[in-house]
């Protein structure tokens, strides 16, 4: 970019910022629910002054050059914070691209008598802004991915509760895909709870596991064996009809393991193993 042009734009900073802000505030898509106008003004000003400074550097067209480092930092910060705040990709990108329009207008005013130069300057400004938009998009997606990764971790922790259903009986509803990492979490949680409560029976309920293949079965068998070593017996419940057929065809041997179709029947079995009798009392004593 030409030195004179850069200097001119720098001189017009206040005007550019005003028009840009005006456009943003006028835009129907303005998310003032997510970010206040004052905040937006501050962010925009910071970004614009860094950008106009970079225009004046010799390598103005290379957005990877040292002159653009502060801009890239500011831009990443803006994009990541917007990703977390819940802005859409379109809103994030429009923020950068709306500045392009304002800059074009200024260039047009400045270079109206020299079309050839105007054309070159607009091209060069465009390529800079486009690559900045790409950077913003990349960081925006990175920000989103971080959010997803955090949620994934949270989910695998939430979805492995060990419930004490009765004195000496634990239940472990497994929901979702049982991969190696999940099995590790499940097994640890179960074994710890067996020690803590001195339980003798653990019910592993797989109603919420969509697919039981040989790897999942192997993980289950390992969990059962580990629990047995600690003196607790496991019952696997929640085996649906289609899963039962699939297991048979696959050739998985579960004959050494107690299995039941429903959690209720597994609980019933656990009661009889512990010699507990549940009887219906007479109506007067129920307290309801």
């Amino acid at each position, binding site marked *: 970019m030409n030195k004179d042009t850069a200097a001119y734009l720098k001189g017009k900073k206040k005007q550019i910022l005003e028009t840009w802000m005006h456009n943003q505030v006028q835009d129907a898509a303005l998310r003032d629910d997510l970010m206040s106008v004052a905040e937006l003004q501050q962010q925009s000003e910071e970004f614009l002054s860094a950008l106009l400074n970079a225009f004046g550097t010799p390598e103005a067209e290379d957005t990877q050059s040292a002159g653009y480092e502060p801009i890239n930092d500011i831009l990443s910060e803006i994009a990541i914070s917007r990703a977390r705040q819940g802005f859409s990709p379109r809103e994030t990108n429009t923020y950068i691209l709306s500045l392009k329009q304002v800059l074009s207008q200024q260039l047009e005013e400045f270079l109206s008598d020299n079309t050839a130069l105007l054309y070159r300057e607009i091209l060069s400004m465009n390529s800079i802004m486009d690559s900045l938009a790409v950077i913003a998009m990349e960081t925006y997606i990175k920000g989103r991915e971080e959010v997803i990764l955090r949620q994934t971790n949270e989910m695998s922790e939430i979805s492995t509760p060990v419930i004490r259903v009765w004195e000496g009986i634990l239940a472990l509803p497994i929901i979702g895909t049982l991969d190696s990492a999940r099995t590790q979490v499940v097994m640890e949680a179960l074994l710890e709870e067996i020690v803590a409560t001195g339980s003798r029976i653990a019910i592993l309920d797989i109603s919420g596991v969509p697919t039981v293949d*040989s790897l999942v079965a192997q993980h289950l068998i390992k969990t059962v064996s580990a629990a047995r070593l600690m003196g607790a017996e496991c019952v696997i419940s929640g085996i649906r009809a*289609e899963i039962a057929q*699939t297991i048979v065809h*696959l050739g998985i041997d579960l004959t050494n393991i107690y299995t039941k179709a429903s959690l209720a029947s597994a609980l019933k079995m656990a009661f009889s193993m512990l010699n507990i009798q549940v009887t219906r009392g007479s109506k007067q004593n129920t307290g309801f």
Partner: protein
Amino acid sequence: MIVLSKEKLPIQREQDVILFRNRIKELATKTGMSLVNQTKLITAASELVRNMLRYGGGGVTQLEIVSKNSIPGVRLTFKDEGPGIPDVQQAMKDGFSTGKSLGLGLPGAKRLVNEFDIKSEPGKGTTVTITRWKNGL
């Protein structure tokens, strides 16, 4: 046999497996396959895709809806460029595993589908193709 739809899904990480299984379920539902047949197909696919990840270092899967004698079905192709299987016959036996698994993946998958084809060349990779028809025959 006519191919009604075709798509490709690369498998590189364990997370891709979940996406892949969901996609098969959608396709199988579209053909009107019963829940039992769907589960069998998905389980077989799950076995093969795990093999692909574990031994083949990932690869590409192809999902197709096919039709033969106006009976629809789902055909899946698993292609990797891993080390290949030196002895396919041995690998197809129950209980044989070079890893520490149950050794049921390949033979089990074969029992769960209607058509099963495996081609492997040591050093070049393995391609497995399975088909399950809507009526399960």
